[in-house]
């Protein structure tokens, strides 16, 4: 029972609280690389706090879909966070953490987000939803092929067994199979979290925006929930990436609460590295034209497919 409570606290509380920090770090890296001081790392917390208090404006064209969507999107992000463990030292008590479920539960949130964008009758919303539909369709095959390939090696599709298995692999990234899949997943993450080169989180220009266009009509508390949900989703994907390909739990010799504490600290360090990586990618690339994204998605799919071929069709 105590395990269960600990798992839920760490998986939800910890992830929800840490999620905005990642955005802060990425923004800081971008600012520093441009010789600016930039906003404080904790800026997103201040923004969220402010937005939660504000009155929201609701379009009079919209229906109940527009109003419930922020809660559904937030709930699916948190549910996804419950599926992807931040450390393998706490055993998840609910055994429903499946990679296929992870993808389809995020699809629920996305479905409602796209509907809400169309709900207000605003052209921006339609544009964002239409682009999001395209990008998600292109990226879905590669995310499932790469996660299932890792699952095949670990002989399970559930996230926790896969992660436990990866702890036993010495330096996964020197194996070509894992390297391919790591790269494929990195592209997936960039696309799923609406970052450069797929989407630009800091723009509000109708020519370029995708995710922001869908949120355009939101304000106040609803906006805060949507932003926080996006940050949680980003952290969930980063967690998946770092815990699969940079395993660390086998390095900790001891057991118990202390080990969990150490594990969480190392996890935070890894998240910091991943944020650094994403920040560097974001600084060094430009946003792609919308119709060049298929090439990027194809690259991701081919990487994951080659990873699969290497191991399962031709052995080792």
């Amino acid at each position: 029972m105590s395990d269960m409570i600990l798992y839920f606290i760490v998986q939800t509380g910890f992830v929800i609280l840490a999620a905005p920090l990642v955005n802060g770090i990425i923004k800081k890296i971008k600012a520093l690389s441009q010789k600016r001081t930039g906003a404080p790392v904790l800026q997103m917390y201040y923004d969220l706090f402010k937005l939660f208090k504000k009155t929201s404006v609701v379009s009079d064209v919209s229906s109940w879909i527009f109003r419930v969507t922020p809660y559904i999107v937030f709930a699916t992000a948190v549910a996804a966070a419950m599926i992807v463990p931040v450390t393998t030292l706490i055993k998840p008590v609910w055994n429903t953490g499946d990679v296929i479920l992870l993808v389809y539960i995020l699809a629920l949130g996305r479905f409602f987000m796209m509907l809400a964008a169309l709900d207000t009758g605003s052209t921006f919303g339609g544009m964002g939803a239409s682009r999001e539909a395209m990008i998600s369709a292109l990226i879905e095959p590669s995310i499932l092929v790469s996660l299932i390939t890792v699952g095949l090696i670990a002989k399970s599709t559930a996230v926790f067994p896969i992660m436990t298995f990866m702890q036993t692999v010495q330096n996964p990234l020197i194996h070509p199979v894992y390297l391919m899949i790591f790269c494929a997943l990195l592209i997936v993450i960039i696309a799923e979290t609406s970052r450069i080169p797929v989407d630009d989180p800091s723009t509000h220009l109708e020519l370029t925006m995708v995710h922001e266009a869908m949120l355009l009509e939101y304000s106040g508390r609803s906006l805060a929930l949507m932003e926080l949900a996006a940050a949680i989703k980003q952290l969930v994907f980063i967690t998946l990436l770092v815990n699969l390909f940079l395993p660390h739990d086998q390095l900790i010799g001891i057991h118990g609460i202390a080990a969990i504490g150490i594990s969480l600290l190392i996890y935070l360090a890894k998240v910091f590295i991943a944020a650094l990586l994403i920040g560097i990618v974001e600084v060094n690339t430009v946003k792609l034209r919308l119709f060049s994204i298929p090439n990027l998605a194809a690259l991701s799919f081919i990487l994951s497919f080659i990873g699969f071929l290497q191991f399962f069709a031709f052995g080792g």
Partner: protein
Amino acid sequence: MLLVLKNIGEQNNLFLAAVMLYLIAAVFALALMKHHKLCNLVTNTICMAAALIGIAAAILRISTDTILTPVTIFESRITFLFLEIKIDQLSAFFVLCLSVLVLCVSIYSIGYNSHYYQKRNVGFFNFLYASFIMSMLMVIISGNAIFFYLSWEAMSLISYFLVIFESEHEENRRAGRLYIIMTHLGTAFLLIGFMIMFAYTQSFDMFGSSELIPEMAKNLMFICFLIGFGTKAGVIPLHIWLPYAHPAAPSNVSALMSGFMIKTAIYGLIRFVLCYLQVQQVWWGAVILCIGIVSAVLGVAYAIMEHNIKRLLAFHSVENIGIILIGLGVSFIAAAQNNDFLSGLALVAALLHTFNHALFKGGLFLGAGSLQYATHTKDIEKLGGLIHKMPVTAVMVLCFSLAISAIVPFNGFISEWLTYQALFLNINMGMAGQNILSILSIAALALSGALAAACFVKLFGISFLGLPRSDDAAQAKEVPLAMNIGMGILAALCLIIGVFPAVFVKLADQVAGSILGASVVETLQSGFMSATVPLAVSENSIAPAEILAALAVVILMVLLTLRLCFGKLKARKYGTWDCGFESINARMQYTATGFSKPIRIVLSILYRPGRKVVIEKGESDYFPKSVKYQVWTEPIFEKYLYNPVIRVLKSGSEKMICLVQTGSVHVYLLYIFISILALMFYNRVV
């Protein structure tokens, strides 16, 4: 109640009672032709009763293992020509599928048919409706190939009359023509298959053994059945009749056609290939898997480009048949390799998806019917804002949309998850071809799932959300209660199966177990029966009920926390952001064409889109009088596959007529002479 029924002992009687009730319904429909309202009420009520009996009989049959004695309903002097009813658990499962759908559609029809009153022959329509259901039921419960063939033919012909019921439109007559040609093409192949069967075994018994048939003949039979049933199922490239016939039929009939009639082909494939021929070769499964992949991806890809709601749904039927075939293909591959567990699991996935598809696709066609009833259009570009006018319909269509996009926590996800698991287990070290095919199927499933979500966001978003795009949409009213009840039952079932899948998986497992001899559920970990226990395949498990509970808890916690920390939610109503210009109107919204444009461009190699812009110039170039924009996609299969074949056939037959019919009596006498010689020669040889 159930126990009493069981004690009667003769479950066959229940099935026969259902058949008889449909017959009575058909007779009543004709008898009460003059009184439209009464006729509609009586016929549909009798159909509902028959469906309820069908559900009870099917559930009883699935849960008992006893072998029922076949019932002969017609005998003739010719030894093989007799009609016999034989019901095993597989038949019972499909009867269940049909009966659940018929129950809901009949309730819906009570309301829906009211727009035919005093305009059309409601009696004749209901006669066709009841006899169509009866013919489908007989296809499923027939015990030998002759009876199967006769019922199959009856089903095709009656559905043809239903397709052309609104025959005053030229397009409906064309659709009917295309449908009847295609369906007979398929039936011809079935007939060849049955003839090969008879040639070697001297019997039409499809429950018998196929040991006497040599290997080559079995391969040939498989190909005949594949083409024959494939045409009915609408697999690519034999799908071309489907997007014409389904929109042409009245909506309640399209719900039955798409929800169940195309599934009779799945029944046929399982019955004749898996049960009768006992899958001999791995390549049989591989071919079905390939067809499944192609149908799943291309079906949904074409659906996205459609803005006629019923054509869009028809293409989604192609997609879902593809998904069912992926499951069936894996099952066949594993059966050929004697892997009973995997074969059973894949078959469970395919059967469950068949059931699920009947529910949500039937529901979606009913939803399309409601939209047409309220707005008199099938074009989603003319709709919009209907969630305010038809709130109940909107909720139900949303449920079906989520279910068909395989989104948690609806039933589509459960069967797709099982299909994913079957594919996952189908990948083993070292078998390169099979592995590549399986991982491509996984990619295809993922792609079709995401594209389906895109498509249904378009369908729901454009037709129900935003501002109304036409006067008809602005003046729409909620449809009669009966229609909403019919859809509501289907929507509730979609959710129930999605949240508590274990019971339904168990049902499908008993059917698969009766075919393959091994139960999947027993070898799986943890008890399958109780609802809260997760679905588990090996160590992989999901528990949809827990997921739903988690989502609910999170939402409640968020509401509570925000309320406590930041006070009551403050919201102000205001217009949509219009960039400071004048207020937004309906024409400024995104259209369905616009919504699907990115996908049209990305997949332009598939669609070969074209466009035409006609500008009528005004006084100044900057103020044209009118601009017409037209965009279309090319139907590749019709243009490059069917049209050339039709052209060759047409010119060839014209030439043949000139050659054969010369008009000279001498030549005709020669023909007679040659025929007599040929017959005498044949008699000598045989």
